[in-house]
């Protein structure tokens, strides 16, 4: 009876901890620190930035006097990219560590598993990196129940929109491309992403010749690249996050002559350059921000400090997490220091924060993406970066760009050659 044993062990551990925590909880009630739980994916390329950036944000807030004089304390958990571990961490954060809000995970499957617990336990929860449209759809469809969940990163629909926006300017407009193949990993976040790609790519003038969804366990991408080449597209539009190293290295080693653009989440951090031994040269992805690109006054100081501290640049989840800790702190301030879940949700809904990614606001109850981060000019628009010689060069939008698109010699630009 393993379940019973585990439950008994859990009870016992709970009892021991409860006794141990007695003096602390009394202390906490007197209003000392504000605890925020942060659940990250420490061993994933994109998810490893979450806890690091959260601690940096808390340090900054505390150095500036805290929230109404109270300090923020970040309690971190590693979910090992597992939904079960993440739910356990969430429960522990609520019942044992007494946090007032939780920031967690870049994996849609994990966030969708936590979301009902955020509803049941009335615990404000923000994801700084998952994308599935279903996260905010649940809030929209059953607001009273799910209102505790916020989406602190773009939904898949907006990621596809951002990719189509830069593809239109850079590849259809400037390089006269006419055809594309969509290549995405099979995951919760890419279902709405691919739907949106298939809708918006033809609208901007790119005919989709083939649509390939592959298993994230795939290790040999050779047949997939051959299949793509047989369709003779001008460009490959990707939707990859769980995978990244293998398709990128094989694209490079096999000298697949077609540019790879789209959303490649792992390529948003410099860890990826090291992991691919530089094979990411020429890869273009959508991301939150990049080193040296002053989207707002806080972007560059944050990246510089992060890189100094950890030796790598943050992935897109790093920027989002840093901003979301500030968003929570400001909401508590707006609520007059109250950390009551319902008051905090109301305060979070009034968010208007100039963060590292841009100006952050959440959609309201009437929008289909309730509590998702707003996308658009003057808000968060994301940028397109290209890996060039070990650096992330911002290539879009033009008013933010610090370089031009250039490809490795094995890339043959079909349309421009014609």
């Amino acid at each position: 009876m393993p379940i019973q044993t585990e439950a008994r062990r859990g009870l016992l551990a709970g009892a021991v901890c409860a006794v141990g925590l007695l003096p602390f909880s009394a202390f906490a009630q007197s209003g000392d620190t504000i605890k925020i739980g942060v659940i990250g994916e420490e061993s994933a390329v994109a998810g490893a930035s979450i806890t690091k950036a959260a601690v940096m944000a808390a340090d900054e807030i505390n150095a500036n006097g805290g929230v109404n004089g109270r300090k923020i304390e970040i309690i971190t958990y590693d979910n090992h990219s597992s939904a079960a571990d993440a739910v356990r961490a969430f429960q522990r954060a609520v019942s044992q560590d007494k946090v007032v809000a939780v920031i967690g995970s870049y994996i849609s499957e994990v966030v969708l598993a936590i979301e009902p617990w955020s509803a049941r336990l009335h615990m404000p929860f923000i994801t700084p990196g998952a994308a599935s449209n279903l996260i905010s759809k649940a809030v929209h469809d059953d607001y009273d129940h799910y209102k505790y969940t916020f989406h602190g990163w773009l939904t898949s629909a907006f990621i596809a929109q951002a990719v189509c926006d830069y593809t239109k300017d850079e590849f259809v407009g400037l390089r006269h491309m006419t055809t594309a193949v969509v290549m995405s990993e099979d995951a919760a976040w890419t279902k709405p992403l691919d739907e949106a790609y298939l809708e918006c790519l033809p609208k901007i003038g790119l005919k989709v010749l083939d649509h390939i969804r592959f298993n994230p366990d795939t290790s040999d991408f050779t047949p997939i690249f051959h299949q793509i080449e047989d369709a003779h597209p001008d460009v490959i539009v990707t939707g990859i996050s769980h995978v990244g190293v293998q398709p990128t290295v094989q694209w490079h080693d096999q000298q697949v002559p077609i540019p790879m653009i789209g959303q490649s989440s792992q390529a948003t951090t410099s860890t990826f350059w090291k992991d691919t031994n530089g094979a990411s040269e020429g890869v273009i992805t959508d991301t939150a921000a990049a080193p040296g690109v002053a989207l707002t006054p806080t972007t560059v100081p944050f990246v510089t400090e992060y890189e100094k501290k950890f030796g790598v640049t943050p992935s897109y989840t790093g920027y989002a997490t840093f901003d979301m800790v500030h968003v929570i702190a400001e909401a508590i301030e707006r609520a007059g220091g109250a950390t009551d879940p319902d008051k905090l949700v109301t305060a979070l809904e009034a968010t208007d924060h100039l963060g590292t990614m841009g100006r952050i606001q959440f959609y309201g109850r009437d929008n289909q993406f309730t509590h998702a981060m707003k996308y658009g000019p003057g808000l968060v628009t994301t940028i397109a970066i290209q890996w060039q010689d070990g650096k992330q060069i911002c290539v879009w939008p033009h008013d933010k760009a610090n370089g031009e698109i250039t490809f490795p010699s094995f890339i043959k630009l079909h349309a421009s050659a014609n």
Partner: protein
Amino acid sequence: MRAVQILVDGFAISSLYGLAAVGFTLIFGVSGVLNLAHGGIMVVAALVGWAAAAEFGFGTYAGTGLGILAGLATAYATYLIVVRPIQRSRAIRPEETEIFVLTGTLLWGIMIQVGMAYLFSDNPVTIRPLVAGVVNILGVRTPANEILIAVIAWSLIGLLWLLVNRTRTGKALLGASMNPRGVTLLGYELTRIYFVAWTIYGLLAGIAGVLLASFLGVSTANTGQLTASAFSIVVLGGLGSVSGSLIAAYVVGYLETMTAYLVAPTLRPIPSLILLVLVIYVRPQGLLGRR
């Protein structure tokens, strides 16, 4: 065109499968050990090779060499820490030794996987290709590294053949696989023979690991899959038969490549697993097996 692609791509991956499986079948033949930590040994070689080359700045060649040595060290550790104590244990009945070795190496493999994931995470890593660039083979753009891998694999298999058939040590190995008691009566020490077999095995598994890392990339999550593919190849070829394993490596490699090209990349491993089940039903001794 498609046929040439399948021929070229299938050849490289099959050669690598063959290289990894030959050592696996050798230690089974010589000492009756089915090493289920096999994938773990390949993964250690790949990860250490990657870390040495990229993280610690040893460069591709020295890094690859260190990776192979790490694979060899892990093979020795497998033998000395797990296999030998079980084989020598008086508490385990002789007829049950094999099943204990099987269980012991399985658990050891999981320990390696978890330990490596802790140290290196479960992200795939790649070692820079030993040679860069591509070569055009009958219209198929093939990375030069892929050709080099096939050449290295076959050179090593050739060397192994020479060693087994042309040297005294090799003949002792062959003898031990046929009749261990007979070999000891001729004055050979079985422990020494086992040690030679594990050395060859460790080197081959280590080399296969680093080559795979430079070809497709390796992650700790692949450990089980690598063991399973070597295991299926060896069962298909006939347990203990080196040439059977080589043939089976090509059967599995080409079956997988054909499935990936002609059916769907996601279904890649399925047909060879079905074939394995059929072989177990129809011809349990495998293609060229003696047992």
